[in-house]
């Protein structure tokens, strides 16, 4: 789900848990706009741009990939677009599985994808200046972990 509307992670998690009542493990992640500073200028908001239909279809394909790669009952991705204020949720990911490892790994995989490959463009808006920001080298390193074909079976 991609929308300009606010995400309420507690409600999303409650709903997801209800739908997946037979799951033994549910993992969720909420990514929020940090309340901090950039270049000495307090962040006023983040602006997230998407380009549909490619943003939407690519996320759905990745969600389906997570369902085949791990033993999952379900996976949910919610992502904000437009202007997002400090403290608000940008992204919510939840996974449901019989066992916790599949749920943890799939949620981690989906977040790394969203940070580095999903079709979004992100701008930090400050009081005085604003700047477009791109993934960091560490974000790309994180995403590379999932390229190894044997990783899905590896126990951590």
């Amino acid at each position: 789900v991609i929308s300009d509307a606010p995400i309420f992670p507690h409600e999303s998690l409650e709903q997801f848990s209800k739908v997946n009542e037979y799951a033994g493990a549910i993992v969720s992640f909420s990514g929020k706009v940090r309340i901090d500073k950039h270049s000495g200028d307090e962040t006023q908001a983040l602006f997230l741009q998407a380009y549909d239909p490619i943003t939407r279809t690519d996320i759905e394909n990745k969600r389906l990939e997570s369902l085949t790669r791990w033993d999952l009952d379900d996976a949910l991705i919610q992502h904000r677009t437009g202007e997002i204020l400090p403290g608000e949720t940008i992204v919510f990911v939840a996974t449901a599985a019989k066992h916790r490892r599949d749920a943890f790994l799939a949620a981690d995989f989906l977040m790394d994808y969203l940070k580095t490959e999903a079709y979004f463009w992100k701008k930090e808006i400050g009081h005085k200046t604003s700047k477009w920001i791109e993934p960091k080298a560490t974000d790309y390193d994180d995403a590379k972990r999932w390229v190894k074909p044997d990783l899905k079976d590896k126990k951590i």
Partner: protein
Amino acid sequence: MAELEFLGRLSERFAPKMQLSIPASIKSIAALRPWLNEQLDSDAFSHPSIRAIVNGKVTAEDGAISDKDIIAFYPPVGGG
């Protein structure tokens, strides 16, 4: 006329979208890049990190284009 769209930081550097008449001799994304640089007085399109989506599909350098397409150029992606 082709519709050019610019995403992320490119949308502010140029415009979110514009219509341009692409010469018939330009048949691929690779060929479009230097022409666009010239039209928009920029070197942005030489950079390999700037990629293209043609009619809603991510398109390789040799991907075909015509003057009827919707062509979007985008810098590196990332949300979350």
